[in-house]
């Protein structure tokens, strides 16, 4: 089922990308990124059927990283919300040029 798995991961990854592209809400964008990471996890798992359990170990690492990113990311989102009372990226554009 490698081809199917890879196709599925690719599709999920691309959906995540599309999500990032079409949303302006920081949290939803972040969720889309999480979807992309999850899709990659599926790739690792799919390969682990062929190359042994190392792939699954990678998934563990990725999950840890996701968690760490989530902690920091959400803290940052809260921080910006405190300043702006919004997390709409359209409105977060003091820095430009």
């Amino acid at each position, binding site marked *: 089922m490698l081809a199917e798995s890879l196709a599925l991961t690719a599709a999920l990854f691309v959906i995540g*990308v599309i999500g*990032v*592209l079409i*949303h*302006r809400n920081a949290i939803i*964008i972040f969720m889309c990124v999480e979807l992309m990471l999850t899709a990659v996890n599926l790739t690792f798992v799919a390969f682990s059927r062929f190359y042994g359990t190392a792939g699954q170990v990678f998934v563990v690492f990725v999950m840890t990283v996701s968690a760490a990113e989530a902690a920091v990311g959400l803290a940052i989102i809260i921080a910006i919300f405190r300043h702006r009372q919004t997390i709409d*990226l*359209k409105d*977060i*554009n*003091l*820095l*430009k*040029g």
Partner: protein
Amino acid sequence: MLLQTAVSAASQAHPLSGTIAEWVWLLPILPLAGFVINGLLSLAGAHFGPTDPTAAEHEHHSEGAADASAISHAGHGADGDDQHAVKRHRWAGVVSVVGPGVLILSFLLALGIWQAMASAQPAAPFIQRYFSWMPVGDLHIDAAFQLDQLSMLMILVITGVGALIHVFSVGYMRDDPGYPRYFSYLNLFVFFMLVLVLGANYPVLFVGWEGVGLCSYLLIGFWFNDKANADAGKKAFIVNRIGDFGLLVAMFMLFANIGVLDFIGVSAKALDLGAGSALVTTICLFMFLGCTGKSAQIPLYIWLPDAMAGPTPVSALIHAATMVTAGVYLIARSSFLFSLSPVASLTVAVVGAVTAIFAATIGLKQWDIKKVLAYSTISQLGYMFVGVGVGAYVSGMFHLVTHAFFKALLFLGSGSVIHAMHAAYHRTHSNEDAQDMRNMGGLRRYLPVTCVLMWIATLAISGIPPLSGFMSKDEILGSVFARAQGSTLASATWLGIPGSTLLYIIYAIGLAAAFLTAVYMTRMMLYTFHGPARTGTEEEEALHEAPWIMTGPLVVLGILTVFGGWLNLPEVITGIIPLGPRELLAHWLDPVVGDATTRIAAGAAQVPASTEQALIGAAVVIAVAGIVFAMTRLKPDRLPRKRDAVPEHGFEGVVAHKYYVDEGIERTIVEPTYAVSRSFLWRVIDNGLIDGFFVNGSAALARGLGWVGSRLQTGNVGIYAWVLVVGVLVMLGAFTLR
């Protein structure tokens, strides 16, 4: 070391070595010293500026004001020769001694050298090398002087006539505030003129050639506070530069083809260029371009009339006697080249003839006394070129010498007239033109000496025997006639015209010009000295003869004008009347131009004595006819004053406006050049295309692109993600879609 031994070896062999001729270097150095002394004296009156010009600018204001206004007052109202003597220069006394003094010393030295040369009778030129000027590879240009019969002749004219004019200037210029400056320029001119005639090679000649041009520039613009004078000086320099361009190119061609530039070397190798070859013709024509510039021939004659803006003695020395004849000298000096090219020689003759008649017609309608003389000079120079053009180098040089006498006399005489006129007008604070003949008339009563002397000169220039002008002019015409049969010139063709025909035409033109010369000269004399006085009653009381220091030189020149012809009495005259030894000058110059004359006249038929006598007769008749024509047709009593004059119409108007040549050049060359330079080259090409479009344009393009890139950076993260994803798309495509 090597050089010195070479010099001594060469000089020991020469008969002039060890004589006074060794002092030839002192000839130009004396006037140079005069220049330095007078120049420093002229600057001695200057005040040093403040130590800090910016800071002290205002403090100095009041102090300098009195000084400056005194000086600047002197500048106002300078108009032509109308210099207002405000205060005599404090070093004027010293200058009066030094300025003419160095010239007189030079002349005495020249006489000494002439004496030595006359006794030694050297067949080869006496070369003195001083140092190596521009030694580069196979190019050897030495600072060297060449003393031979031709340069000796020129030296005597320059220092002799020059000394007379210097003396005259003492009287004429003494009250001018720029007196030391005037003499420094004049001395510098003589220095360069002597370098010109003494130079042993073309580059050294060229130093003098351009140097005299420089002095001419400085002296024409001597009263520089009048724009017209400054313009005239600049015009003279630039037009001369055009000629110099030709001379330069001629030098380049000589060096490129025969590798030498000294006269001896070139004359030795001239035949390598090929007799009658296109190459030698081209060289000669370029060289002749130089001559047309310096000697005011068509097409470069236009500067000379304007050059009359300078002080009158300057016109006499530079623009009549010496500098303008440098072209004639150059051709005589380069006779070994010109004699190889009949076409070039014919060109010289044709241009000379055309210039002679052309300038003479303009001279008919000029009112400014100096302008008449200026066109007369151009016309006479044309004669000289006809002479050297047809290979009668001696005749050309002969006319050069006699012309120096009588034209200097005429100019100095006119200077005397102007001096008187000016003084008169100055007395009455009138703004009338002191040089316009319509304001003169009847001056013979007030200036008798000047009047007599000028009449002598007028008769000389018109060709009345036995005055000097008659002798020399007649010799030229005779030579033209003689060469028309059987010489190399006659057998050559010029622009498809057989040389023989051409020479007859030139002869005819020469006669016609002689007629016109007699007419306009007589006209000038009539209007100036005869008829009723138009000066104005008040002014008439102030008119008086010039002091002895001015009339003295006039008298000397008058004597020379009368007896100058004895220098080279033609055989046809001595055959009839034994006036003295015949053809002295021809013998004198024979070592220099003899070969060339022979070469060019080779095969010329001997003109029978009877024909020659007939020709002389015709010439005299024509001259007399001209004088009579002028006497009878012109009515000095009916001439209106300048301010009442009406402008001429028709052909007379065209002639009075000098055929509109100046205006034409202004419109067709000068103005378009400026306009194109300013509006196209500078504004469009330089500022617009190169700087604006390419240089600043590329900078603006970079900035513009940067600005666009900066605009894309909207601050919206979404856009950044878009760009990133597009980048991913491309990157992935680059790797996977291959």
